[in-house]
């Protein structure tokens, strides 16, 4: 099951309000911000993971996905910009 990160109704980023221990059923209630990485969409998360698994080689990940180097670098730049924006928003809160 995929972890939903944005609200299906208004697209706002969701937060964690309930955590539960699967062994003893202890529940923790609160208002927890999702870590920045989890605020990314599933595709973006798997892209970051793929990038990490190729030792950070844009060239290698580009050839794996059948696209050119500048296309992959552009995708990376867009993601970096989004992460910076999310970090900024998280710091404000």
């Amino acid at each position: 099951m995929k972890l939903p990160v944005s609200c299906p109704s208004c697209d706002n980023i969701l937060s964690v309000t309930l955590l539960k221990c699967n062994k003893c059923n202890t529940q923790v209630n609160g208002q927890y911000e999702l870590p920045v990485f989890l605020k990314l969409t599933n595709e973006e998360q798997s892209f970051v993971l793929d990038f990490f698994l190729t030792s950070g080689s844009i060239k290698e990940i580009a050839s794996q996905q059948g696209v050119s180097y500048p296309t992959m670098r552009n995708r990376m730049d867009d993601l970096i910009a989004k992460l910076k924006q999310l970090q900024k928003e998280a710091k404000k809160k």
Partner: protein
Amino acid sequence: MKLKKLFNPFAYFSEITLLIIGILFIIIALFSSPFFNALHTGIFQVAAGKTTSWKHLLMLLSGTLVPFLLLFIMALFINKKTRWIDILNTALIARIPCYVCIPLIIFAKKIFSVHYNDPKAIPISSWINVIVFTMLNLLVFAFSLVLYYNGFKTSTNARKWEIYVLFFVVLIIADILTLIINYHFILP
């Protein structure tokens, strides 16, 4: 997907593949231009005429290197990470439609030049030819323009519309500069 690759090869093929294809087409144009008596006077212009092989080569190079230099300088202002090879490939690949359609362009120009002084003397069959070839020439021009646009967009990741207005201005300047270089320094 195939159409996407045709209109934006820069997003799918490696820089080496694009460079080899671009150079290969320059060599093809170098041999086919004298055969069809075609002169690549501008980025988008092909004129009918004869000259030496060296001048053909210099004109082909000016038509590639002038837009490359201007677009690369502009690209560095937009995105410092832009690689020179991506812009060079844009300048090389975007010219291919003009090389491929040399016979078409020269044929259309001949029809025009034969009847240029007396348009009333043009028979209906020639009018149809003129219209068809003009449309095809426009398509070649549009295809080349799309390749320049997509190549630049992929290389720089530019998003703002103002940048693309400037991009077309730079392309027109590159075309004028190429015409000046070819007519004043290479052809005489």
